[in-house]
């Protein structure tokens, strides 16, 4: 039965973009992938993509001179997900579930195609081929400059993928970018909450100072057991479910796992 003939025609949207001080910033937002592209992606990745896969979406920063650029897209992010099942998590009621199965279904013990279905990724962006690489640095992103209420010339928020973890929480990779007259900030955030098990947050920030051509990339990984977070919140008067849905607030209390800063200066 051939039922591949699609009926929807997604609005063919041109990417949004802005060019400023020799940098071109662009984003693209389209609907989730259809069946055929999903199949193709599954084949190339070797794992089933998340339920909501925005495979055509991206955020890109390119320097007009010097062939330098970095972009963020779903495929490359998913390619870094563990495909072996070594770092596989289990849902909260898994033990209970499997125990009840021991008696009735001896035969069914095989986990089909094991992989990290939380789609955890430490993706820090895709550099253009032959682009100059980053070098380690201790220099932080100048937060004070970013706190100034400079006019925002360009802003966008782009989801790359999302999965409801079969109603056991949420996993999501999304990007936010804002461009001011003198600088830009891009935040790509991986947020995963597996209810009653684990909360994980991995932020990649790209900071560009237009005048100097300085680019700083900062990667911060935080995570904590779900119950521990709940305990921390129990003492407060916060609305706990709302708190657990808000990565910004969670970010303030989750313990740090890893932090890495890199930098490069683009010349003329």
């Amino acid at each position, binding site marked *: 039965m051939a*039922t591949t003939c699609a*009926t929807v025609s997604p609005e063919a949207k041109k990417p949004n973009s802005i060019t400023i001080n020799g940098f071109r910033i662009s984003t693209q937002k389209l*609907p989730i992938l259809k069946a055929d592209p999903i199949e193709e992606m599954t084949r190339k990745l070797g794992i089933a993509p998340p339920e909501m896969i925005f495979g055509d979406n991206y955020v890109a920063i390119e320097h007009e001179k010097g062939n330098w650029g970095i972009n963020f897209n779903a495929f490359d992010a998913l390619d870094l997900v563990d495909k072996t099942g070594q770092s596989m998590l289990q849902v909260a009621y*898994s033990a209970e579930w499997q125990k009840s199965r021991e008696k009735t279904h001896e035969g*069914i013990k095989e986990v089909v195609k094991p992989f990290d279905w939380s789609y955890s990724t430490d993706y820090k962006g895709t550099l253009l081929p032959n682009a100059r690489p980053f070098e380690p640095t201790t220099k932080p992103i100048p937060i004070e400059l970013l706190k100034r209420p400079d006019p*925002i010339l360009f802003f966008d928020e782009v989801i790359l993928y999302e999965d409801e973890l*079969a109603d056991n929480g949420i996993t999501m990779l999304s990007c936010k970018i804002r461009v001011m007259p003198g600088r830009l900030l891009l935040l790509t955030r991986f947020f995963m909450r597996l209810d009653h098990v684990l909360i994980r947050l991995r932020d990649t920030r790209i900071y560009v100072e237009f005048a100097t051509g300085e680019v700083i990339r900062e990667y911060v990984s935080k995570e904590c057991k779900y119950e521990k977070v709940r305990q921390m919140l129990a003492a407060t008067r916060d609305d706990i479910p709302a708190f657990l849905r808000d990565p910004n607030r969670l970010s303030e209390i989750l313990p740090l796992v890893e932090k890495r800063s890199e930098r490069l200066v683009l010349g003329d």
Partner: protein
Amino acid sequence: MSDLDRAIEQLRGCRLIPESQVRELCYKARELLIEEGNVVSVDAPVTICGDIHGQFHDLMELFRVGGDVPDTNYLFMGDFVDRGFYSLESFLLLLCLKVRYPDRITLIRGNHESRQITTVYGFYDECIRKYGSANVWRYCCEVFDYLALGAIVLGASSVLEPTSSTALSSMPADSELETEVLNSRGDVTMSTYRPRQRSSSNASTDSRNISPPRDISAAPGQAAAPSRSGAPGTGASGDGNGSATTSRTGAVLCVHGGLSPLIDSVDKIRLIDRKQEVPHEGAMCDLLWSDPDEIEGWGLSPRGAGFLFGGDIVKQFNHLNGLSLVARAHQLVMEGYKEMFDGGIVTVWSAPNYCYRCGNVAAILELGEDASGGGTVARSNGEYGRSNGVVTDNRVISPGRRYRVFEAAAQDTRGMPAKKPVADYFL
């Protein structure tokens, strides 16, 4: 105009009804649902719908595309609530329609019709926000416990009546219309045909004789062996006429999630004690949670809980139960519907632009009535003896399937996430 009709009108306008009325409605709904079996029998024609998830305006669009209750006979496969912003309006309207027209709308349970899930994914919060207390949430959850677990559609036609005359003229010779896909304006965007079927007794009309599909489907009635009349006591043969007449189209099982390794016959679903919160394991859990996958046999989901089932499982289950199709919901599909395993199972998804950001289309599945059998079909399911080879040579044919695809409603955007993101000074 009765209170109920007034409530329906009010809810259609996306306005809530008072808490006291909700309590009364839920009480009446429970009285009604308690009489339904775990597997409800539904006669074709019927329109089968997947997840709604509180997308009220899209539910209205669904009714616009598929026809209104009671003109159209509907079967909703669960997940009425959570995620969207109007779970209350959506579920209460469906419930009102159920109480008002019990024979024209069937509601079965999805995994979101559960206390635990609704506290996490929005419905509970929505009840608190809109009614100021958890009372309405509690009334609704009590109704959830009484919802049927599945439905069997009987008497579906194997051939589709073409939507337009042009479709008829473009039909290949010696073939019949099997599936048709329509957009929300009613234009046919795709059709598939299959070679015209003959009944196993070969009593069919001469295949060179080009006749409208309806005439062709008239033949197979005679092909039925009298031994296959419905066994007494099986709910699926509930019309009780015990007629030897059978449709060549098998019945269609509708469940929210999928099959269970604990369930090898439809009758086993009937034995479940369903009036409870959705358990974390067991047959009831599987029916609401499992997913088909391109595997062989049964598999465990990598998540550590939940089953996946392959095409061989579906084929065997359908064969043993005289089914031609399993219709299920539960998984987002960009095209609104997705057939798998040679059309043995279909996923129907009825929430367009899911979560107001996925940009997907939605679909509903229409099954037509078999005009040949002269009434209700007495094909039973899961009946004793069905599996011992009696039916093997008499292949069941899948029903003609019309998918109506629709997009998200142009709606009033109050409370919706802004289309253009609002710039903020994130750090």
